[in-house]
């Protein structure tokens, strides 16, 4: 009887611990999941579909090291080929324009503008550490997911007044993100699908971003992905951006 009581108590305490994760802890786990690979190397296919059904396709090679160094380079379409961006810690971003042979620092006013005609903004393309930029509150939870509300921390800037993040319990992977503009209206919805574990890391093979203001949507598909290939930190410099 005594043993049974102890077992019941342990299960109860364990259950309480599992559900008692704070919003901060959940968000840190989200960051850990995103930053768990030492580095990522992926080819992304973006399909932009406007409300009339007109489609544009873009292809980007994206590399990431940790959670806050990311670089992307267009390999298609021809008119954007070679354009590259570099995202560094503290929101520092650079854009390389091959036609001008120049690298430009992206000022914060540009970060809420559309990235290369997609529904993603430059801010969306940043490599981010959620915990560093956003203050979370646990809104609700279910057996399969947590719902977090994120608002910018006092020292960080964002085009969004808040974000609602649905986090899958199994993977700590955000499966849905609702974005709210500065005036409080919902402006975008991101749905992540085909969430798989590749080489031990979670990834959504397909994401769809709906821009509620324009009626457009952008589908992002991961064509190829490789983890922990030993990317050097040197790749995340202006030197490599201009190559």
């Amino acid at each position, binding site marked *: 009887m005594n043993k049974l009581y102890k077992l019941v108590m342990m299960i109860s305490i364990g259950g309480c611990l599992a559900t008692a994760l704070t919003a901060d802890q959940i968000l840190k786990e989200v960051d850990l999941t995103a930053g768990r690979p030492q580095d990522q190397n992926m080819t992304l296919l973006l399909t*932009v579909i*406007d409300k009339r059904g*007109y489609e*544009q*396709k873009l292809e980007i090679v994206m590399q990431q090291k940790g959670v806050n160094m990311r670089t992307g380079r267009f390999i298609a*379409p*021809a*008119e954007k*080929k*070679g354009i590259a961006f570099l995202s560094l810690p503290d929101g520092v971003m650079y854009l390389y324009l091959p036609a*001008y*042979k*120049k690298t*430009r*620092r992206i*000022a*914060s*006013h*540009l970060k*809420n*503008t*559309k990235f*290369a*005609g*997609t*529904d993603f903004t430059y801010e969306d393309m940043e490599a981010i550490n959620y915990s560093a930029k956003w203050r979370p509150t646990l809104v609700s939870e279910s057996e399969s997911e947590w719902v977090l509300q994120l608002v910018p921390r006092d020292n960080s*800037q964002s085009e969004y007044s808040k974000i609602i993040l649905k986090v899958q319990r199994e993977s700590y992977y955000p499966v849905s993100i609702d974005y709210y503009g500065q005036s409080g209206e919902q402006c975008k919805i991101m749905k992540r699908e085909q969430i798989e574990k590749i080489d031990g890391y979670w990834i959504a093979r397909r994401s769809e971003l709906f821009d509620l203001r*324009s009626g*457009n949507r952008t589908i992002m598909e991961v064509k190829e992905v490789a983890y922990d290939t030993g990317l050097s930190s040197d790749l995340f*410099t*202006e*030197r490599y951006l201009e*190559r």
Partner: protein
Amino acid sequence: MKVFVFSAVAITVLLSGSVNGENNVMKWSGYLLADNRLEAKKELGFSWNEYRLNFIAEIKPVPPARLYSEIWLRSLGFPDIHTSRDLENRHKLRPIDLDLREAYLDLYGVFYENLDLRIGRQRIAWGTGDKINPTDNLNPLDLEDIWDFGRRLGSDAAKASLFMGSDRIYAVLIPMFTPSVLPSGDFDRQISSRISLPPGLILHNYSDRVILPENNLFAGSKAAAKYAGRFFDYDFSLSYCHGPDNMPIMNRVTVVPIDTLGAVDIAGELIYPNMHIIGCDLAGQIAGAGAWAELAVFLPEEVVLTTDLSAIGMGEQSNVVLKQEPYPKLLLGADYTFPLGLYLNLQYLRGFIYERGNDNLKNYVMLGSEWRSLNDRLKIMPIAGSLEFGDLDEFADTYAFVYAPEINYSPAQNAVLTAGLRVIHGADNSTFGILKDRDEVFFKVKCSF
């Protein structure tokens, strides 16, 4: 220079024997541009007719090396037909022009891990400004199309880039002199209009000859160095450049009478003065707006203009047209994206690209705007142009403005249609005022591949 290029190519070939060919794939890209312009004040006569095939080829024969070349194949201008014999010449019917814009070899960390080398014909773009850069003085100006601001010729050069974290040091040597391309017709007109003749003399014909720097490493070469780094939240650089200016300046005028009524021919002589240029630039943001600045201080050699009037019995006169004293050129710029996606770009420039000497620098305020829609397929630039003025107390005599709105539409991916106009107004002796009879409507089609 050729020795450098051949040596570098030889190194690449030797290295290529020892690695696999994964990177050894030639990549092709480019665009086709059709550019037609009509003069609005001259019964819509054609003023520009260009078909340009831009062709870029790129290969990485081995991981630490990259070969890059960019070629323009162009049909530029109009049929140059005067006689029936001309009709037999295809080149007079449809002038074709081939231009090797860039052709260089990159060597990444071959001699030292943090050292990159670029050898060959290359564009070396310095400065943080938008298309106008007072510190960008390495490549010769290409003013063939005066409305294509910022276009420059590639220079046959060697560039070394040393990287130390976020700090970078660049060293450049351009061994051979290449003069700037001048705008067709306009420069002659501007020079001859500024020659002041003694009372009673009338200009009949103007001609000139250009004296290039001697074709050797000492007289014609240009050398430069730059340090770039971060200062608080700003990117900044300091640079130095020495060598002959790529824009000519007149140093001798000979006046020859051709009749007894006062008509004279003028023969000019143009040289390329040496310059020391110290530059600095920075870029960052102020209250969320992009902000940049460039300052270049030019220290030229003195140029004395000798006017030979001995043929009309007035001897020779001399005056200094370029003093050996420093003169600064300054650019200040900012940009911001307002709600609803309206982008504004404002720049103030003191000293246009070919203005020299403290007494000749004018002020320019350039404003650009852009509003994008349909996922960037539609781009409208409703407010775009430039205001030029000299000293404020002489505004009425020195001002000019160019208003150049434009609209771009992409009917399909990789294709862009452009339509726009240029309205020019101003005083006769201003930089843009000289073009005031050349208001234009223009149409462009660009297809990338």
